């Protein structure tokens, strides 16, 4: 059993500038599973994602995280990536003058050293671009420079597809996408997510889950996972909204 465990988060607490944002989250993801973490803005779901990826502004005050049986928390952001963690950014950064192709080559070189197979790289790169309906000219554009919202999100998924992580955390990959773009991105995630790995979809809305059926749905409110269930939980949430859930939860815990 433990062999299949990709991610194991135990009672994680995260602070940013001295303020606690994540207040004791526990989470287990097995290989081949897709989990959705849903919550309103400010619920702590993006903070959780950034903390797992090793953002220096997020301080982990207690708890443990293991990726594929390895302690993640003593690793830098670089080392976490090399260990197989991937964060799809909600707001990807612009790096002028650095082309998408060169950036990806550098990222792959960081993994494989100088033994990067350029021919194979090109082949895989072209396949993945096609899957995500990305034009060839994308490769020579500067990283996120002048990209539309949809293009940025597609580039995040392209990176995931190229880097083949053990665990992909996709932070609001659905936001800012129109329905056609959403379909393409969702299909890209399904097709190129590592088969033996895990995926965490961090999202505000249920709509992406129409295309990617999660194995588990976790609802986050105020830094805690307050409810966990199957894919139907997302539909319930969509019907009733966060307010209804919040009232329920506060009655249960007696806040």
């Amino acid at each position: 059993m433990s062999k299949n465990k990709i991610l194991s988060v135990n009672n994680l607490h995260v602070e940013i500038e001295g303020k606690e944002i994540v207040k004791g989250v526990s989470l287990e993801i097995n290989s081949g599973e897709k989990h959705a973490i849903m919550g309103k803005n400010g619920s702590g779901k993006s903070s959780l994602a950034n903390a797992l990826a090793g953002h220096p502004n997020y301080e982990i005050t207690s708890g443990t995280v293991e990726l594929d049986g390895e302690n993640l928390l003593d690793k830098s952001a670089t080392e976490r990536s090399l260990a197989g963690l991937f964060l799809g950014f909600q707001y990807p950064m612009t790096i002028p003058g650095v082309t998408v192709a060169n950036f990806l080559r550098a990222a792959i070189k960081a993994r494989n050293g100088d033994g990067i197979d350029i021919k194979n790289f090109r082949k895989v790169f072209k396949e993945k671009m096609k899957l995500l309906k990305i034009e060839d000219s994308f490769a020579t554009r500067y990283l996120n420079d002048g990209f539309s919202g949809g293009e940025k999100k597609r580039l995040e998924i392209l990176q995931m597809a190229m880097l083949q992580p053990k665990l992909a955390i996709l932070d609001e990959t659905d936001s800012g996408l129109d329905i056609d773009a959403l379909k393409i991105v969702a299909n890209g995630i399904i097709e190129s997510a590592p088969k033996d790995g895990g995926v965490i979809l961090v999202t505000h809305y249920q709509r992406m889950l129409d295309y990617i059926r999660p194995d588990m749905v976790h609802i986050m409110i105020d830094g805690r996972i307050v409810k966990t269930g199957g894919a139907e939980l997302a539909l319930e949430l969509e019907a009733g909204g966060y307010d209804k859930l919040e009232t329920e939860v506060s009655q249960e815990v007696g806040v």
Partner: protein
Amino acid sequence: MGNITTNKSIGTIGEDYAEKYGFHDPEEYFHKGARGINHEVVEMISKMKKEPDWMREFRHKALDIFLSKPMPGFGDTEVLNNIDFDNIFYYIKPTAEQSDNWDDVPEYIKNTFDKLGVPDAERKFLGGISAQYESEVVYHSFQENLKEQGVIFLDMDSGLREYPEIVKKYFATVIPAMDNKFAALNSAVWSGGSFIYVPPGVDVTVPLQAYFRINAENMGQFERTLIIADKGSRVHYIEGCTAPVYTTDSLHSAVVEVIALDDAYIRYTTIQNWSNNILNLVTKRAVANKNSTIEWVDGNIGSRLTMKYPCVYLMGEHAKGEILSIAFAGPGQHQDAGAKVIHFAPNTSSRITSKSISKAGGQASYRGLVKVHATAKNSKSSIECDALLIDEKSRSDTYPTMEIDAANVKIEHEARVSKVAEEQLFYLMSRGLSEDEARLLIVNGFIEPFTKELPMEYAVELNRLIELEMEGSVG
């Protein structure tokens, strides 16, 4: 791009330069004069070169101008005012003769240029090369087929000897000795540099290059370059420079005059990588006649202080001037670089793109002037200054001056200062790059508009230099 290597330890910057470029040779010179500057030194230089009287007189007059002219009141005045002109060697002749065969160049000098990759570049892609060591060009070669087309590429001294009428017609017409104190000093003691003449309609499709090497401590190198592209011709000239690491300063003060006649095109590329004990005080100016184009591509990585503002005079209608520069200021370095464009004729256009990177307390300044005279109607100019600060200790300043006296003129000016953002670093690190690699990628991206204009070999070399400079940025 993508020249990313593994992380190296902090504080290796000086060591790397020392090993790769900063070594020095024993001085087995043909002639090394005394320190200091006076009329006897000028007379000696002119006599040794067997120059015509007009040049000898020009030198003496220039020395008087130098002695009477005040120091520039801008840039790094503290460093300027502390130059000890009596402590400098003004003329060192390393060998008796110039050669066109590396085997005839003294072994130690040949080894130096070998280490710097000069003969290698010559074999691979250059149409001609000049290698200057101290005051004289010690090696010079030039492709036969270019000679046959009437192209002249010589060191400046040989140019004066062999083509006195062309030299006399153009020499000091673009930059007179009066121009500034350092132009006057160069005019008095100049030695070496390049002389290029391209006949009408000839397209020199391979670059011509000069490499300047200072070896002695407290050396003053004063090369003088004159490039004339006759009507409808094209040429690309490249210069590179390095020096040993010493504890006391040396002076490099060149004068470069560039003339594009009607419909001609000249690109002048510089990769300046002096050691951090060189004061690099250079005057560069070009004249663009009707329909001609001048491009300065100016990269400043090294030196303790650089003050250099490549200039274009747009004299003829529809002339174009472009100045693209980068400056990298590391610890203890001050790059006071910039650009000047003077529009004299109607329908002229200019573009200035300046990029600077400051790191570990380095100081980079953009100092620029765009002047549009009343005669230059319908002209346009765009100026873009971008500064990237690697850390909190570093500094960037912008001093743009614009004087517009003509009607219907279009001027665009943009200036930006940015810092390497933590979020950018995190983004790249989250893809597996180390912090140093991430920072280097950002810096390489920042100067990409510059590197993409260089011949491939130089772009690779420049990225490598930047990589050396960026090592150990963390901490």
